[in-house]
């Protein structure tokens, strides 16, 4: 099997790549899902679903190669289409959730949380109605996990996927957000599944059993992030927490933007490294957008034509661009740091290396679009500050 042109890597170690498998396909389920949390699963049928002692090898042998092939196809087709999806629905959600928030404020929310329910959420897969406040949430998206805990809905979360490593108290399970096992999900008896991508059959399986699933695709801008946090607040009844989280984020970000003084007329260039084989991100991605807030110029944008937003740059191109700043987002996955970069053949002539402008990022922080994106911005801000400080001095 020969991939077409270039290799488009998955978005992040998050592994939640929304539209990877069905590019351009718009989910047009218009039926409204009604859910009663109490009668989710017949206990008898639940035990029938789970065989004793684990899953038969037959399932593995069929599912795994198929999953691998599907994954491979998905990696090829990239995720650029997801941006259009989210932007489109994002706008819709804005009007609705703000309307909802207004109407909720009119009712007295603080005491009777349950009075806020049922709620209708507008999702990319259609309207989602939650009848009661969910108390058994399963999060299959590390970003959603961070958001849920940040807004104070952590107690309502019973399990999170195997990649959700923040916050530490999140109840990590063995379920993969990337290739989840429907039976494992059902065994947990969740009353809400939050994810940024689910295979079609899992979606179908959940809806068959009446478990609501909330799709929150990877964000492409900070606005998406705020919208998703707000939506999670609505979905969990933690709207107040959501509101304050968003406000905090906006405040901090504003402070950061103010503190950083990007000199007019000069545009700092940067290279964001996803892995030591020189995969990078262009400005069409969320990560790229964040950098753009600071007016930084992304050297990977030249490679936009190569496909999705994740080109593999050629080493000599990176060298020839001599970026002012180098950001390493492969410190955890691939043990890259300032020393390893300096030792790369030929990299010692780069000004970023010479002047110590190689910034080590936490892989997760640099790839998730949750509340910790503020930390990401902070890292960029301080790097830019140092540059400008040097410039004003020198």
């Amino acid at each position, binding site marked *: 099997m020969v*991939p077409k042109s270039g290799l488009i890597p998955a978005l992040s170690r998050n592994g939640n790549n929304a539209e990877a498998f069905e590019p351009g396909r718009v989910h047009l389920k218009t039926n409204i899902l009604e859910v009663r949390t109490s009668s989710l699963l017949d206990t008898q049928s639940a035990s029938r679903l789970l065989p004793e002692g684990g899953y038969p090898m037959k399932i593995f042998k069929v599912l795994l190669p198929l999953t691998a092939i599907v994954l491979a196809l998905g990696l090829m087709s990239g995720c650029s289409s997801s941006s259009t999806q989210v932007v489109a629905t994002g706008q819709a959600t804005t009007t609705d959730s703000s309307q909802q928030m207004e109407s909720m404020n009119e009712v007295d929310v603080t005491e009777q949380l349950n009075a806020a329910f049922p709620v209708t959420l507008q999702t990319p897969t259609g309207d989602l109605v939650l009848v009661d406040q969910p108390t058994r949430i399963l999060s299959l998206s590390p970003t959603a996990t961070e958001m849920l805990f940040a807004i104070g809905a952590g107690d309502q979360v019973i399990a999170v996927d195997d990649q959700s490593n923040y916050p530490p108290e999140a109840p990590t399970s063995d379920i993969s957000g990337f*290739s989840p096992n429907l039976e494992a999900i059902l065994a947990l008896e969740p009353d809400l599944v939050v994810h940024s991508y689910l295979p079609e059959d899992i979606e179908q399986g959940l809806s068959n059993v009446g478990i609501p699933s909330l799709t929150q695709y990877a964000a492409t801008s900070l606005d998406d992030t705020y919208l998703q946090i707000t939506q999670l607040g609505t979905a969990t009844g933690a709207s107040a927490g959501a509101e304050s989280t968003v406000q905090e984020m906006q405040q901090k970000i504003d402070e950061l933007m103010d503190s950083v003084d990007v000199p007019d007329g000069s545009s700092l260039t940067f290279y964001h490294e996803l892995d030591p084989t020189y995969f990078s991100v262009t400005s069409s991605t969320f990560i790229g957008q964040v950098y753009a807030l600071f007016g930084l110029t992304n050297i990977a944008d030249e490679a936009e034509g190569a*496909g999705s937003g994740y*080109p593999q740059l*050629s080493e*000599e*191109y990176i060298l020839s661009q001599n970026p002012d700043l180098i950001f390493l987002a492969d410190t955890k996955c691939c*043990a890259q740091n300032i020393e390893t970069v300096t030792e*790369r*053949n030929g990299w010692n002539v780069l000004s970023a290396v010479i002047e110590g402008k190689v910034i080590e990022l936490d892989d997760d922080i640099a790839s998730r679009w949750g509340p910790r994106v503020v930390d990401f911005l902070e890292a960029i801000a301080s790097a830019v500050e140092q540059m400008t400080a040097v410039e004003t001095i020198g």
Partner: protein
Amino acid sequence: MDSNKKKEQQEAPAELTSGLVAGASLILLASILASLLFGPVSIRPDRIFLEILNRLPGISLDSGLSTIQEAIVWDVRLPRIILGLIVGGLLAVAGASYQGVFRNPLADPYLLGVAAGAGLGATIAIVSGATNGEGMFDALPIAAFLGSAIAVAITLAVGGAVGRSTSTASLLLAGVAVASLFTAIQTYIQQRESATLRQVYSWILGRLSTSGWDEVLMILPYAGISLIVMFSMKGALDVLAVGEEEALSLGIRPRRVRWIVIGAASLAAASAVAVSGLIAFVGIIVPHAVRLVVGASNRLVVPLSFFIGASFLILTDLLARTLQSPAELPIGVVTAFFGAPFFLFVLRRRSDGII
């Protein structure tokens, strides 16, 4: 006079003449030069030329290249070219040798489980995060190599034990079985560890990675040994072409030759895969192309495959770097693009009864 000379030529046995070697070396040199002069970053070729001269002992010139441009040419392009030379040469010679041993022009160096074993080893290394040791002791190539070695060993043990131990058919079948098993395990691990999926996949597609000269140094001893052995066996492969019984009647020991060649070719393929991932088709396209030009005698095909294989990989790498500049294509994609049509061409000729 002319017709006599022509007759002489026709009647002469196949021989690796110095003319052929010179021609092949020229092709290789041209490829190296082209790859040095061109790339995704355009640097004036004349300046690079001057820089090359500058580096010769006793000559000191100012080439006009900036430090970064120099770094690009010497620290990025050159190691990559040399690695491509070695890997391309190894794969082509291993392919030619395998084809000679199995008497099948479609045998490729990954046949006995080399590829599957390396893939599994690399996947395990990537997934366990052990991929970034110090330069030469980077765990990834070592793991890939070990995986290859183990897979081939199992294939030889199983294939050799079944049947009368001289049958190449049972070796091939064992190779298929081992490859399937290892691939299944690899796929299982791969999909379990979603976080590293991209890394694994990227490795599988093949890449002439350039952490400077580390990979070149790592592969050099294995390349040297395996090439020396394969070159010394090229004549014996010609004798093997008439089958094991007849070859025995002609005075060679077919079984011994077979094991030696398989061992050396597997070593060559495994070390190539270990440093550069699975670059497909080189082992098949190149020996075939060489055969179409100079005939089937392994005394010519084996050594010439080295030169042509090296040139081929250097040039396809140049394409991989520049076609979608500044993005890179995985080199396995480019070789496959050349490989598939070539395969069809070869198949057509086979059905016409020519091959």
